[in-house]
């Protein structure tokens, strides 16, 4: 034993077996650590990929919709008196009735009132609107027969897409045997065709899945974000500049600082309650309006922007401030000529991330009535509106099967919106980042 120690002493320590064994262990530990790290990253990516794939996959049916080619027979009551339809005629005529009657003529077995109602349920409630759109600029004479593609109902659509199993017993199927037979007739005649679902992007909300669109909620989100940005950016940046650059460090500013950090951790629903109490009940601002929603989200985003801005200001090296002070710049000039431009990428990144967070928020909007069924697209910040995440939640609550795909499509659109915003943040950071 003693001998071997002496021998080790003789040799260089790095050449001993003891040292090599230890070194091997160190390298092994490093490899293990690397492996665990890669495993963690891979797991995170896998989960993300699974989530995105499953949502995208289940949203796909919402992006197309089926039409059926119908021979419209313009009877006396569906023709314009003067040859061209007046606004009144376009408004008053029973276009859905025309569509339903024309479709019924394709099936010789339709006799009873019940049968006719069943035929009517094959077409979308919006089919009449398509006819109006078509006949508006046309002159159509009584007795004319026009071939027109009309949107089918949600059940018809799901059946053709294969989302309703045709082989189920009738009692378990939404679509009755009779309707199934009709649909199969139309298919065999080659009258059913698929089309991009423009309604998803052009319409507001609707009770009919095939007519429900995201436009109203999307525009509502844009208005809300506009108000949020308008209020949170200047207030947040100014507050951060004051706290970071001008305010003396004392007990009072410490308390302010701690509370700003606390504010960032306040549950978002509390901001909604505050908005309800202050903006709606006290200031009597309109309910369900992007104005109030934007203000509430601005309050929520403020701490994020203040914290990000302060971090960005603090990361500007003191040597730049000293250089500016050294040539006689005033405090104000130091901030606005040197510090703020250098901090701008960080401020913008923080702001966009804060806005993206606000854009995905539902809880505070719940309290101020923005979780509402609103068909019209808001035209300004005081119109009634809803936002994307609220729309997704409401669609998810609807019983119709077709809303499942609509909900996923809403999520895909919201995620694309947020990814675009985050990409903008990354781009701005890379573009304006300066080295010193």
């Amino acid at each position: 034993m003693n001998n071997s120690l002496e021998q080790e002493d003789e040799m260089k320590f790095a050449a001993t077996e003891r040292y090599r064994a230890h070194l091997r262990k160190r390298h092994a530990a490093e490899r293990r650590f690397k492996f665990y790290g890669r495993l963690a990253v891979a797991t995170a990516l896998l989960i993300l990929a699974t989530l995105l794939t499953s949502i995208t996959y289940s949203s796909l049916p919402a992006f197309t919709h089926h039409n059926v080619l119908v021979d419209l027979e313009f009877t006396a009551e569906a023709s314009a008196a003067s040859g061209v339809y007046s606004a009144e005629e376009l408004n008053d005529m029973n276009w859905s009735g025309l569509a339903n009657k024309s479709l019924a003529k394709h099936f010789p077995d339709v006799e009873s009132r019940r049968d006719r109602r069943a035929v009517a349920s094959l077409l979308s409630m919006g089919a009449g609107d398509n006819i109006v759109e078509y006949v508006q600029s046309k002159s159509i004479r009584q007795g004319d027969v026009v071939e027109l593609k009309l949107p089918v109902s949600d059940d018809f659509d799901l059946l053709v897409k294969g989302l309703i199993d045709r082989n189920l017993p009738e009692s378990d199927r939404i679509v009755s045997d009779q309707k199934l037979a009709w649909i199969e007739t139309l298919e065999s005649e080659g009258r059913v065709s698929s089309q991009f679902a423009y309604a998803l992007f052009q319409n507001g909300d609707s009770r009919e899945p095939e007519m429900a669109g995201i436009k109203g909620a999307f525009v509502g989100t844009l208005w809300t974000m506009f108000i949020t940005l308008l209020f949170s950016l200047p207030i947040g940046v100014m507050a951060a500049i004051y706290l970071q650059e001008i305010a003396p460090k004392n007990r009072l500013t410490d308390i302010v600082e701690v509370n700003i950090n606390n504010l960032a951790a306040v549950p978002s629903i509390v901001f909604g309650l505050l908005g309800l109490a202050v903006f709606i009940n006290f200031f009597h601002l309109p309910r369900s309006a992007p104005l109030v929603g934007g203000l509430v989200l601005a309050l929520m985003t403020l701490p994020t922007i203040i914290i990000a801005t302060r971090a960005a200001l603090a990361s500007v090296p003191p040597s730049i401030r000293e250089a500016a002070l050294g040539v006689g710049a005033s405090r104000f000039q130091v901030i606005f000529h040197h510090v703020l431009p250098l901090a701008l990428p960080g401020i913008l990144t923080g702001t966009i991330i804060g806005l993206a967070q606000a854009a995905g928020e539902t809880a505070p909007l719940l309290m101020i009535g923005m979780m509402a069924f609103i068909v019209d697209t808001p035209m300004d910040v005081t119109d009634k509106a809803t936002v994307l995440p609220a729309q997704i939640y409401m669609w998810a609550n609807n019983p119709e099967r077709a809303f499942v795909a609509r909900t996923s499509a809403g999520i895909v659109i919201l995620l694309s919106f947020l990814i675009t915003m985050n990409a903008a943040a990354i781009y701005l950071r890379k573009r304006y980042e300066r080295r010193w």
Partner: protein
Amino acid sequence: MEEKPKITARDVNVFYGDNQALFGVGIDIPANNVTALIGPSGCGKSTFLRCINRMNDVIEGCSVRGNIHIDDANIYDAHLDVVELRARVGMVFQKPNPFPKSIYDNVAYGPRIHGQATSKADLDNIVEKSLRRAGLWEEVKDRLAAIGSGLSGGQQQRLCIARAIAVSPDVILMDEPCSALDPIATAIIEDLIEELRNKYTIVMVTHSMQQAARVSQKTAYFHLGKLVEFGNTSDIFTRPQFEQTEAYISGKIG
């Protein structure tokens, strides 16, 4: 000391919170000379330098007591405008710190904020003159629009000197201006300082005894916040009056 001193300090005490950094410093700094402030780390020489253009004002919890006069004007007078003072007393820092802007804008920034130039041609003139005086003009005249931080370390420091003299100060303070530079860049800056002394009063902090001996006419030795000895550089380095000074310059302490 027949000539009237440019900067007169009397009984200057500086506190960082409860910590006293300078104790009763009094010194007469003559015009158109290079005065070197030497001493071990933490002796207060940089603190004293930063008192002369009141850069200590921006440090939280720092307070200065005593009097410093530049040409009879008390710079700690309550009515004195700090911005104006800093236009008269330029500063060059330890680490070259050009603004992340073009070479031209670096030099033009001071004159711009003080409203010195009346026209674009005027400003061009100031920039050229300052860069020439800093000995940088020939190297950068073709790339004035290039970013200042793209220059080499020595060039950056000369750019900072050009930036300081662009606002035509009387006094230039230099806080270890060569400590981040290689010997060749240092030699260039030292030659430049020698030239600049004809027009400006230069006060510089240095850690290099050889540098103090080479470029300065006056040397002040600081130790533990006190001014130990002040006199002609040649006297300080050959016949120091105090043992402490001798120990430091001969390398026994430091």
